């Protein structure tokens, strides 16, 4: 017998459904908090969405003189210019210039100005410039992708299960997506195209989790004709709990490897994924499953009976 078998020798008996009211309250509070944060703090949009210029330079000899760089670039009249030194050697500097008023030509001219001003002492490791037109389009496409993904997921679940499961999946996925938006808004982490990828991956991962438990609910509905819905839902979550734990653990270690070793471009993605892992797992067990108790998913028995049955339990 392996180590793990000793650890989980029996199916656990946690009462997930019974904790649904505190879970819903927590969920609602987090979602409201997210909306408040989005309304007041907004997002720290990267240049993908906000437009503007991003230049990553590496000073050719010795650490970069960031004070001097700030001075000369600040006096170009390009509006807000932010500089950020990073890396161990102190040679790397990230320069961000806000979107310039006017069309694409103006943006290009601003980039040329920055390059001229910095001169030959720097190696250009990365240059990104997004004009206002593309920024708006990327924003629109990102929003569209997220909305369609949530709907497509719900539609698939509806098609494979019943409408009640589809509705549950919709609520759970909505929860995950909103809270991940909240994560970006509250932490002030840069929100860019990779963030949209992170949100969609979280939605996909979380629904994966939810579907596994739903699958077990469906199986148990056929298997235990007399069990109350309340107990049946709890049983499904408990039966799949070992799998949930293991899968979360494997994905967690790989995402952790990405976070710590994947470099700064993937840093934001990995951080969001870790958060999504927690949120997604929570929503599968405490949102997607307990909401089913409010829908009539069992023929012959209804909610009231289940509630009575649950109250009868010690």
């Amino acid at each position: 017998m392996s180590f793990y078998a000793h650890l989980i020798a029996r199916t656990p008996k946690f009462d997930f459904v019974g904790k649904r009211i505190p879970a819903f309250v927590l969920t609602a509070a987090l979602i409201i908090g997210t909306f408040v944060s989005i309304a007041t703090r907004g997002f720290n949009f990267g240049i993908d969405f906000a437009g503007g210029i991003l230049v990553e330079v590496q000073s050719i000899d010795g650490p970069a003189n960031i004070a001097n760089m700030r001075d000369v670039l600040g006096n170009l009249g390009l509006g807000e210019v932010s500089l950020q030194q990073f890396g161990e050697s102190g040679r790397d500097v990230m320069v961000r210039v806000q979107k310039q008023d006017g069309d694409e030509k103006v943006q290009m001219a601003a980039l040329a100005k920055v390059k001229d001003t910095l001169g030959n002492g720097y190696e250009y490791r990365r240059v990104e410039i997004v004009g206002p037109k593309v920024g708006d389009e990327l924003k629109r496409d990102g929003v569209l992708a997220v909305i369609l993904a949530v709907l497509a997921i719900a539609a698939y679940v509806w098609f494979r299960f019943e409408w009640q499961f589809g509705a549950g999946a919709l609520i759970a996925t909505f929860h995950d997506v909103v809270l991940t938006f909240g994560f970006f808004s509250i932490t002030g982490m840069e929100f860019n195209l990779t963030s949209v990828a992170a949100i969609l991956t979280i939605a996909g991962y979380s629904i994966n989790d939810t579907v596994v438990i739903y699958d077990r609910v469906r199986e148990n509905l056929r298997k235990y004709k007399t069990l109350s819905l309340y107990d049946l839902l709890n049983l499904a979550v408990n039966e799949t709990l070992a799998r949930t734990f293991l899968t979360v653990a494997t994905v967690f270690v790989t995402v952790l490897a990405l976070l710590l070793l994947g470099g700064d471009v993937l840093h934001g993605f990995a951080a969001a994924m870790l958060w999504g892992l927690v949120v997604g797992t929570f929503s599968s067990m405490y949102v997607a499953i307990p909401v089913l108790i409010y829908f009539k998913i069992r023929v012959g028995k209804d909610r009231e009976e289940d509630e009575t049955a649950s109250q009868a339990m010690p």
Partner: protein
Amino acid sequence: MLQFPKWKIVMVLLVALCGAIWSAPNLLPRETTDRMPSWWQPVSLGLDLQGGSYLLLEVDTGYVKREHLSNLVEAFRTTLRKEKVKYADLGINGQNGVKVRIADETERERVRPELRKLDPEAQFDVSSDGLLTLTYGEPAMAKRINQAVEQSIGIVRRRVDELGTREPSIQRQGTDRIIVQLPGVKNPEHIKSLLGKTAKLTFHMVDDTASPEDAARGRIPPGSMLLPSVEKERGLPSQYVVRKRVEVGGDMLTDSQPTFQDGRPVVSFRFSVAGGKRFAETTAANAGKMLAIVLDDKVISAPRINEPILGGSGIISGSFSAQDAQDLSLLLRAGALPAPLQVLEERTVGPDLGADSIRAGAIASGVGLLLVVVFMVFIYGTLGALANVALVLNLIILLALMSVLGATLTLPGIAGIVLTMGMAVDANVLIYERMREEQRAGRSLISTVQVAFERAFGTILDANLTTLAAAALLFQFGSGPVRGFAVTLSLGLLSSMFTAIMVTRLMVATWIRLRRPKTLPL
């Protein structure tokens, strides 16, 4: 359960073999793979990993429309003058048409078929008060814009090719966009400046009946126009009054080269036969007058015609640097763009940063894989080791699929691979957990394995298909590197379903047959 049909075993082995063959080039050094056939290449790296420049260009479709309509206005004017018809209000009408008023009805009816002939595609209307209008429908205009975009792509490709860039990729995106990808280009400023020029070259006669000073005060003779000069030298005019009529256009050039004349950089050119004839006629008829060489509405120079130029070739001199002369001849060789291009988006990654990203990605993948492998053995022992074999095979198949399909590996794509490892073992976890449950329920060993694989299959299918739906949307709406992520995630999920279900099953069955355990060590 333990007996597998032969064809299934053969198929699994065949897939594994193909995976090994097609993923192998990824382990070889670049110099070796460059000499390999095209069907046996490593996965192609995105610009964010190999370094290079991505430019998104937009064709000015408004310009295409305006240009077309104003050409039509000029054609109207020429026809009406030739027919000696009195007209008024000639000009562009709204967004898609041209209008002219001809008061006299008999004149109007006489000239109508002639005007109609100028563009039979357009809709032709006459109102009761004598206003003739020619209007284009959306499809007719869209066709013209489409032609202009296609033509622009050709010109962009020629200009980029002339610069000798390694394996550039030029593709159309949507109705009026062009994506230019230039691997290995560190500083695209020069290419951007070349693509930003329309490079429309025309030869006009200088109008010597009016001085530029008069013209600047608004007294421009009809049929002439005031153009600025690019000359930076002192003592030369900053503006010229030139005839609107184009004597010869740059489209009649066949070649152009940078060269030197009296130690100064100049650009030589050669006309086609028809162009040479036109040029000879013009220079013969206008000896002693000045001929303006106009590039993108700026006069490069306006030399005096000393004698007819009959050889069909000539030289453009101006205040050029050697680089200017080289660029101008390149632009003339490649041809003029039908409309100006604008750079909407640029993303350039230096080769160092790309190499750093590859290293970071490789380390993260390696460590991620190691952690998952250790974790699975720790939890499931022997069965975990079998799952690890399936996982490694999954990665090999994924890499082979990407290489064969020509998919591009980007940095987010590497994240997709790392994530796939975490999610791929999920299928194994589902199967093993199911086995544990069935075994605990008192099933026999064979029946446990059988039922576990059968029941887990449906779950794995549903769970992965929903994730695939999200990945498909990411591919549809994502751009560049993010698309790479969607591709690796999708391919990884597909190959993980194969390895987890088929391969693991085969391995578990073989293991049971060889070892004959009484119970599963779960």
